[in-house]
């Protein structure tokens, strides 16, 4: 695996946006050129245990669709009308963007929703690379869930790398590196919570997202560098309100909308942006059986996103997030046609309402055409809080 140096980071730091949104996946192609014989595996949101893929010496890559970088011309006919943009643009990348097809040696679609699940079948028909639909256990109470999930994880890697053996020591090492990655996120978010003016939202967003297609070691170096930069940041403190942004755990809003949230006067203290990359707030155990550690952590420590079954605590979850963030309001930022987000939103909004916490619901698509209505909604929300 690559050992990053500060000079390696210069191209990343200077071309952060370009690399973050690169649908040619040049960083992935570059990594493969540097690691002959090794593979890159694309994983659809929200969560796939990248540690397992990394332990084989391969590169796990989060994919987030084509965003504003690709026009939909074929995917509509494949998926139908009432389907979210990330699924359509990901399908469009498959159908009409050769650099995307060439970048990856396998795909994993976790069962976060029915569309993500079904994409595995569409991809499987159209490419020769292995495609795996990862059925993450939903029953957190059953004693049978951990053996099931351990086996499920192993079936995933056996499908992706049928002729290779897993080295448990390498898996422990991978867990350690990803624990460091998550600890760095946590530090940055803590800094942002304490001094949000030092950590610009768009820069933080791209700093996390660019890690999607980097070796975790290199990304750890980037996060350290960024943490240091943010700590020294002398941006002036604004008269902004502290908010939680939730609902955008899978499809990502256009960068303009992310910028808009801060421009209208919000400091985002807690959010779901690319939550799968920071799915755990606590480190995965580096002791004992590492596969079991991953399974156990998923079941008992994972982020409580709408893509998982968790009974009777929707209200408590959002109220706790608001409390921990010392937030004044919540922005529900949901992708058009995203059923899990739209279902959870009802119970969460009710809990907020009962506790007198304001919220606003903004719906987005990957390719918007002007955001004046969104600006208006956000400005009204902020003004109502500032002058309350």
């Amino acid at each position, binding site marked *: 695996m690559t050992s990053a140096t500060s000079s390696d980071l210069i191209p990343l730091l200077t071309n952060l946006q370009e690399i973050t949104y690169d649908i040619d996946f040049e960083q992935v192609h570059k990594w493969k050129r540097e690691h002959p014989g090794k593979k890159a595996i694309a994983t659809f949101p929200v969560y796939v245990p990248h540690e397992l893929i990394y332990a084989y010496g391969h590169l796990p890559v989060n994919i987030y669709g084509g965003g504003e970088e690709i026009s939909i011309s074929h995917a509509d006919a494949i998926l*139908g009308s*009432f389907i979210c943009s990330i699924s359509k643009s990901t399908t469009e990348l498959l159908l009409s963007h050769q650099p995307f097809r060439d970048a990856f040696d396998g795909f994993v679609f976790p069962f976060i*929703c029915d569309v993500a699940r079904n994409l595995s079948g569409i991809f499987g028909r159209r490419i020769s690379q292995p495609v795996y639909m990862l059925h993450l256990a939903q029953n957190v109470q059953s004693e049978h869930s951990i053996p099931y999930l351990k086996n499920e994880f192993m079936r995933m890697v056996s499908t992706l790398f049928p002729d290779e053996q897993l080295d448990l020591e390498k898996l422990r090492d991978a867990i350690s590196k990803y624990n460091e990655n998550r600890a760095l996120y946590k530090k940055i978010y803590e800094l942002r919570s304490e001094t949000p003016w030092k950590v610009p939202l768009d820069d933080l967003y791209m700093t996390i997202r660019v890690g999607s297609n980097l070796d975790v070691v290199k990304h750890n170096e980037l996060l350290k560098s960024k943490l240091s930069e943010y700590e020294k940041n002398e941006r002036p403190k604004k008269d902004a309100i502290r908010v939680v942004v939730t609902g955008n755990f899978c499809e990502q809003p256009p960068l303009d909308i992310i910028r808009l949230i801060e421009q209208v006067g919000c400091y985002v203290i807690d959010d779901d942006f690319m939550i799968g990359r920071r799915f755990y707030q606590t480190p995965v155990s580096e002791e004992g059986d590492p596969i079991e550690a991953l399974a156990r952590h998923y079941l008992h420590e994972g982020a409580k996103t709408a893509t998982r079954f968790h*009974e009777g605590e929707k209200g408590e979850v959002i109220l706790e997030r608001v409390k921990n963030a010392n937030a004044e309001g919540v922005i529900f930022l949901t992708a058009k046609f995203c059923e899990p987000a739209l279902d959870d939103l009802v119970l969460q*909004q009710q809990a907020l309402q009962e506790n007198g916490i304001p919220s606003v619901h903004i719906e987005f698509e990957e390719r918007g055409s002007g955001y004046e209505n969104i600006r208006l909604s956000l400005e009204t929300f902020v003004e109502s809080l500032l002058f309350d």
Partner: protein
Amino acid sequence: MENIVAVKEEDLQYAGAARKMQRQLVRDFYRQDVTKPVVYLFVGGNPAELLRALGFQVYMPEITALTMAIRHQSLQYILKAESIGYGLDVCGYVKTDIGLTHLSGGETDMGKIPRPDLLVCNYSGCSVYAKWWEALAEFYKVPLIMLDIPYHRFNDPQKEDLEYIIGQLREMVEKIEKLFDLTFDMNRLKDVLAYSRKAEDGWGRSFEMAKHVPSPIDAYFESIFYMFPINALRGTKEAAEFYDLLNRELDERVKHGIGPVENEEFRTVIEGVPPYPGYRSFWNMFKKWNAVSVAATYPKVGGMFDIPELRHDPAKPWESIARYSIFSYCNLSWDFRRETIKRYLEDFKADALVIHGIKSCRSFTAGQGDLRDYVINELGYPALYVESDHQDPRYWAEAQILNRVDAFFEALRMKR
């Protein structure tokens, strides 16, 4: 039976008998008194047999919702659910159920829908199932048990998947025994399973009947009526007897060469959930072209009843319940779904595939366009794709769909 032709009434002993009994079963179901604890289950791959054996009255809000839609009563409940925050893009079943049962007290002109005492989330084939039951558990403050069914990804169910399901089934039974002070009786379960098996054998036979030319049954539009006993009443004597009667009626139709249209001209396979708000109109669009559905996927949303090995088996109670649960249609991988469609097209001597995609159910619908591409370009059959919704009449654009259907059959006729 809508189109009985060239046969004297007195020759027909069973004409319309199955439809009459089905109507009666629906009426009786919604008018029954609540004498036992009520459990809500989902249709896909459910363990109804276990719950019946434990002494529950079993309800499926999906069935209530579609019954409201076919009676043109769903929109008022959908709007009610939207008024408390459920978005336009949320599943119409969810909104109809919440609007009807939670927000309107469950009163219908068929009878009162009781609130549940227990929710069992048989998570087979639909991610919305979990969201729906999470909400109901909050609304009704009743226990919710998750029964996680792994998605079908392998040709045979993997040992580990079956063990996972069986383990959860046993845990579920223990939990329910404690929660409701009930005692599980294996002999009772075997009796219930025997009724299920008998109903499934009969239902499976009715599918086979459509191989006759002309087909004695419309395997989509007509079979949808006959889904009620297998899904709502599976495991009861009434359901088992119903399919005996259906088969007697179908045998009689075959004997007299009766089909659902006067002169069968086109044999179609239909994939997808029906547009219940426009059900009659949609059916008429096909009748007018003398088109009969000879096989369909929707009647298998509960389970793949056409595959004998996947039916319930009193000799293997746990294993057969687990195996059945994996093979609900929406829990099937696209590989399996494509193979199923291919088998139907070939075995039932079909001329074309018709796909109806719906806004609400992405589980069924996402990828149907890819299926169309597969059927046209790899199998060489014509295929039509139309869209609306199964619950929400605001998505039913009759004129547009009629134009598409007419153009499709016109082209098919021209090619002959």
